[in-house]
């Protein structure tokens, strides 16, 4: 690497993370810095977009461009950024409430557009920032401030959903395994198309049911020879809710929206000047 190579410190901002001590999100941001180093993304060309939540504070702690939008809209904001300016490296980051609850409606569409961004979902099965309400991935057995007696909804299965949406890269990790995360981030960055890194990232303050400990018991790395291109096999894995399979679960290569748009632009050609268009109305 050349002398001018970016190092971890070049990606760390001056703001000290305000997450609680032990929060899973620390386990995600550190390997993220490392993956940026590994891929030598220039901070000047990089934007991290986030939603609202504890997880939404992520970009404040990175010394790249950042955008902290409104609750649930990180993904379409990032998509617009990328489609309009494909030269940039774009990340979207948010929590389970942000990404699967209020913002859940955007995922299918960014997936089918195959926008070349990387979406990092920090799932803690709880609303952290608002202090402990049920989230779309909270298990039925979990009580919370909004489910004081019992929860009345089954948890969503984000892995199965993203497979159904046709996301072209889906990886799953755990912030208790930061080394693995670095590799997943790196591959996601290198993937051309919509890549998602689903991370279980425990909330030590409000989620007393799914913790580093309980997760460690069910985490199972995918087999070495796992066939990433087999969507049905990936779906089968997603249905196994007793284990938490990690690794790159699915990947396919197909044109991104930017490539498709570029192909059209190429094909239809350009006006020489504005007058040429105006003439059509004469």
């Amino acid at each position, binding site marked *: 690497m050349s002398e001018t190579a970016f190092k971890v410190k070049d990606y760390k901002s001056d703001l000290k993370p305000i997450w609680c001590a032990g929060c899973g999100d620390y386990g995600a941001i550190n390997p993220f810095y490392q993956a940026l180093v590994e891929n030598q993304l220039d*901070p000047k060309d*990089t934007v991290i977009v986030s939603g609202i939540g504890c997880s939404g504070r992520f970009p404040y702690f990175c010394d790249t*461009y950042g955008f902290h*939008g409104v609750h649930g809209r990180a993904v379409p904001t990032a998509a*617009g950024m990328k489609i*309009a*300016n494909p030269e*940039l490296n774009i990340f979207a980051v948010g929590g389970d409430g942000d990404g699967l609850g209020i913002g859940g409606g955007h995922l299918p569409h960014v997936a089918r557009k195959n926008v070349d961004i990387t979406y990092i979902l920090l799932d803690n099965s709880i609303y952290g920032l608002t202090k402990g309400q049920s989230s779309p991935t909270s298990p039925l057995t979990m009580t919370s401030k909004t489910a004081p007696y019992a929860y009345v909804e089954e948890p969503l299965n984000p892995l199965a959903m993203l497979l159904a949406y046709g996301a072209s890269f889906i990886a799953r990790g755990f912030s208790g395994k930061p080394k693995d995360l670095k590799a997943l981030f790196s591959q996601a960055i290198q993937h051309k198309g919509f890549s998602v890194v689903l991370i279980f990232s425990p909330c030590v303050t409000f989620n007393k049911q799914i913790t580093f400990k309980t997760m460690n018991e069910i985490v199972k790395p995918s087999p070495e020879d796992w066939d990433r291109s087999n969507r049905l096999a990936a779906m089968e894995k997603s249905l196994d809710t007793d284990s938490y399979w990690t690794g790159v679960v699915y990947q396919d290569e197909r044109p991104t929206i930017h490539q498709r*748009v570029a192909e059209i632009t190429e094909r239809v050609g350009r006006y020489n000047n504005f007058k040429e*268009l105006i003439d059509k109305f004469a």
Partner: protein
Amino acid sequence: MASPDLVVRIGGEGGEGVISCGEILAKAVARGGLNIHAFRTFPAEIRGGLAVFQLRASHGPTRSLKQDLDVLCAFNQEAYDTYVDIIKDDGALCYDPELCTPDERLKGKSSFEMPLDAISREVTEGTRAKNMVAVGAMIRLFDIPLELAQNAVAEWFDAKGDKVVAMNQKAAEAGWHHSDEHFKPLHRSFERHPERDQILVTGNEAAALGALAAGVQFVPGYPITPATPIFEFLCKELPKFGGQAIQFEDEIATLAAGIGASFAGKRVLTATSGPGLSLMSETLNLASMAECPLVIVNVMRGGPSTGLPTKTEQSDLKFAIYGTSGESPRCIMAPFDIYDCFWQVIRAFDIAEKYQMPVILLTDQALAYTSMNIPRPELGVFEPVKRLAPPLDTEREGFQRYANTESGVSPMPIPGQHDLPYMGTGLEHSETGAPNYTPDNHEMMTAKRFRKLKTLGKHIVQEPSEEVEPEGAEIGVIGWGSTYGAIREAIEMLDEQDGVKVAHLHPRILSPLHEWRIRRFLGPLRKLIVPEENYTGQYAHFLKGKFGIKPIEVHKCRGMPFSAEELYRAIKEEL
């Protein structure tokens, strides 16, 4: 005084070809060298309900719809029933006796049989070309050569192949001959100027052309009546200027994507209507707070809620100004006619980029779906306003994206271009963009954001509003948006018919208020009239709040634009 205009309304069931008949007619008449004003109104359903096309043509200016008809061309009984009363006393009905039976409500006005179905059957195989028969029959009235109509027919059916074109031209020809033989009393002769180099566009088309002229780069969109044609137009044309028009899954994603693109340095526009703008409320606020420039064209329709999607209303003004929580600056504009749609979109971009805020341009269904011949817009040497960029030698360390400047405008770096990473954010933030909720900071940053409106307010002092201020006028009218033409014509009628001078001011920037200019206008007046196409008098309420005046408010909340006659009567009542 005999009107120099010819006003023809064609009415029939939605899907029957009323609109295509009118479009072809309009094109031919405009090319024939007359000024036209062509208005459409649809049912909100795909099929059924009354569709209406009204064509007004004249050698003089045609600034508004006219209320009373010279000719009603009724394709069915419902059209007759609904409009027979607005045929002028010296006007006429043209109708297909198979489909419509005139009755005593015609009150001795003339009527002409126009057997559309029969003629169509005669010259083609079926009745599908009936609307082309009507094209031919009507074009004769305007003193336009059949050839111009035939060209327009050919263009309309071009994609469907020569056979279809030929069949429809045959029908038009037959209609022309029928008219030539039987409609003599209706034929007008005009002073025509077919040599003029003009274009014929709707308000929606003019706005979309304006966006392209302004150098729009990214257009996220979601279809909604009556704004859809702007997006569809840009889907077709923007790629040929190297930009992207992309459909999103809803208006929230649309605006979020727009903000993303704006942050990434692009010129962004989206077009929507009431329900869509409502959905954008939260995200719009983010654009104000994060200071991302963008332009929203809001084509107002009848409200509230789903309301009257295909009808017109001027009822989103207060929503555009106040339509989101807390207090955040936006600029609200309204073009006043079709030509103005073109120019005001360009200006909206300049304001958005200069002041780093969302600009909402309020047009309405009447403007959007009216077509007029307008001068060919000449861009000349066009210099779009650029965002304030950080000086070249700006230090990365401690860079203040949200610097508390005198104008309120702070330097905005662009990712990829400037090595000045910062956080754009919807949280209250310090000058660097870091979260900051202290009382002093909030006070300072709120003031900074609103100072941009003040700076803009000072800036617009020098800009012209549309105005007439005849010497000695004691009565004045302030209007906004598409009522311009009707107000202007009403004032001309008062002058010509009653010898009364009335002043007229029509600001294009509605918020911030063009305070100094309005105050000067109000100075000599004894009475102020504020006509609006809404129920509560939204702009009047502002003026009252600001200037402590009590204008006479004229409201129309009927899904239809004011006519000049209506306003003439309303003003006259106050003399």
